[in-house]
């Protein structure tokens, strides 16, 4: 009888109040991204261009002009490829985050992975089905150790991983770009007449070939999907995953429960490093073909956004990465109307700022419900 008096709005509010905790983890990133697009739109407007036109071009540049082109993946393939690479660094941050560690070092691990892949891609000339997995395995191990080193210092010496990983980023950048690439592993050592800076090209067998003609999309997307599934299983279905989550949620409780905190942290940072390394390797084996003179696409830092907007879950990270990958792909086309592709950075930066300050969005979301629920209760109590 009483329930009949509830309007559909009140019913929605009641449903909202029951579900808002769960939904907010999904709504916060979505709202952050929408706000980011609005703010970026205002910035476009300020430059005297039409935001709607810009977004139309972005959309078409990301997915394709029509259904035919979308299906062919000729346009979307580029964005999906970027998304796949972002997924791997995003997962890297997600895994570390689950163990309560902040992996700012994905960039460095990415670079270490890239140079390792460039070296073995050049040295090994095995059939692709043996050679490429072998390269990825070596890369995982090397980058994994680079990541695990930060966790090792935290565990043994109590050094905060944020500082160590930042330092390890710059050590990787300087040692690779100002030593290895210009010195012992320079293209000039192998081809004195080369005009390019960087390392020699990898063998044809080491290359990840494009899946379809007319697009650069390659097997990276399958590697990314496999990684998402494996990490999902690791975190949610295995003992190690349980230990990682327990360590991240409450380190003291986890220690009391008999979990080997040190081991858990080092393993999760090893996995994180391996993922970022594979990401860098995919860049080399798939798109670059060698380590160029200067190579800082920033996917390591972007991974932080992917993990956060993806609410630090593997599937969320995958969705966020695909989304931002497509935005990045589409942003390239916006240069035609004079909007620089760094525009994608703006959207990403603003979205991250709002996710960082998510308590604000949550507060607003919850407040909407609170005010209305009071009215909803009034309706019920008023009758009884």
């Amino acid at each position, binding site marked *: 009888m009483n329930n009949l008096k509830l309007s559909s709005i009140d019913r929605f509010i009641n449903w909202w109040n029951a579900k808002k905790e769960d939904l907010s983890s999904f709504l916060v990133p979505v709202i952050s991204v929408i706000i980011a697009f609005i703010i970026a739109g205002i910035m476009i407007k300020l430059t005297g261009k039409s935001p709607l036109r810009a977004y139309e071009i972005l959309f078409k540049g990301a997915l394709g002009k029509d259904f035919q082109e979308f299906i062919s993946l000729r346009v979307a393939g580029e964005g999906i490829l970027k998304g796949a690479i972002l997924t791997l660094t995003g997962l890297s941050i997600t895994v570390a985050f689950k163990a309560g560690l902040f992996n700012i070092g994905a960039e460095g691990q990415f670079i270490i992975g890239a140079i390792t892949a460039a070296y073995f891609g050049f040295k090994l000339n095995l059939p692709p089905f043996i050679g490429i997995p072998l390269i990825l395995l070596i890369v995982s191990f090397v980058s994994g150790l680079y990541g695990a080193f930060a966790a090792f210092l935290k565990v043994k010496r109590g*050094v905060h991983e944020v*500082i160590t990983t930042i330092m390890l980023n*710059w050590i990787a950048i300087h*040692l690779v770009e100002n030593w290895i690439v210009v010195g012992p592993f320079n293209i000039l050592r192998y081809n004195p007449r080369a005009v390019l800076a960087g390392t020699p090209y990898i063998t044809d067998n080491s290359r990840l070939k494009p899946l379809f003609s007319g697009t650069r999309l390659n097997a990276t997307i399958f590697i990314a999907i496999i990684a998402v599934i494996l990490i999902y299983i690791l975190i949610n279905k295995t003992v190690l995953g349980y230990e990682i989550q327990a360590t991240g949620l409450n380190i003291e409780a986890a220690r009391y429960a008999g979990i080997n905190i040190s081991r858990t942290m080092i393993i999760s940072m090893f996995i994180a490093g391996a993922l970022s390394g594979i990401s860098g390797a995919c860049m080399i084996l798939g798109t670059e073909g060698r380590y160029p003179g200067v190579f800082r696409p920033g996917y390591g830092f972007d991974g932080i956004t992917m993990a956060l907007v993806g609410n630090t879950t593997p599937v969320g990270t995958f969705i966020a990465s695909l989304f931002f990958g497509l935005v990045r792909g589409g942003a390239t086309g916006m240069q035609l109307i004079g909007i*620089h592709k760094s525009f994608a*950075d703006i959207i*990403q930066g603003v979205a991250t*700022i709002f*996710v960082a*300050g998510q308590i604000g969005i949550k507060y607003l979301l919850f407040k909407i419900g609170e005010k209305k629920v009071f009215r909803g209760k009034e309706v019920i109590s008023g009758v009884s």
Partner: protein
Amino acid sequence: MEFLKTIISFISSMLVFGTPIILAGLGGVMCENAGVVNIALEGIMRFGGFFAVFGSYISSRVIDPITGTRNPLAGNPWIGILFAIIVGVLAGLLHGYISISLRGNQIVSAVAINVFSLGGMTFFLERYFNTTGHSPSVASFMGKPLFPALTKIPILGDLFKTMNIFVWLAVILPFVVHFYLYHTHWGLRHRAVGEHPKAADTLGVNVYGIRYFAVIMSGFFAALAGASMSIGQLDLFDNHMPAGLGFIALAAMIFGKWKPLGTFFAALFFTLANVIQIYIQTEAPQILKIIPRGFFLALPYILTILILAGFVGRVTPPAADGIPYEKGEKL
């Protein structure tokens, strides 16, 4: 004589290269002593660098109205400093709002500011200078000693030739910050907030107020650091200008044990690696064949890790560093 000259030129290079690191490092000192981590120094440097050039550029229009043409070199670089400071303070406020008022994750907030600064400044470069590379030349402090009279001193004068306003600030401000932190009531409160906010709060210290002041000052210092590169060392802005110096500043702060004077000397020590590398490159290039250049560039970061790992000496950050404070929270 020749030896003295070399020493002077070394010191002078160290001061010039060290200036952005010292200034940004002081930003870190202010912030972290009040318990807020700020790894956005790099991003704020980029903001400061751009807006310093921007301020200097647009002031050229104000100064030269008769001819109607804009001569960027007629601008006023002091307006540039002003612009940089305003933007730096705003960036500090943003980081403060997220990490203090919203109690958001300080690392995330800072990373977001770094990401945004890169995209945002490219955007502004395009909007105002029609380029994505670097801005045109503007009026600057490059090669303008603050006290030209001092450069006439024999031998020692060489040192003052390269000391523009920013270099002087980088030499003086560490002592000012040291005095503030260790010899004033406010400094005591400032450090108390970073060590034990709850206790400070109980004694009536405005924890939020001091933390806001600290992040604003860190924005101020980082923006000055950025300006010192764009209109101090050069007369233009390039998006890749900070090139990790914001993170070196953090490293210097840690190396300097979170103390202003320690940070000052650590920053100079870090630039020493770079100055030696440049010196070797011109004087004895064959050494770079044995010790690669990349090693010199990586040295400051390697040292920081060694120090933090306790091989050289233990360092302890302020106890509440990086922990958001909530009034009425249980300890």
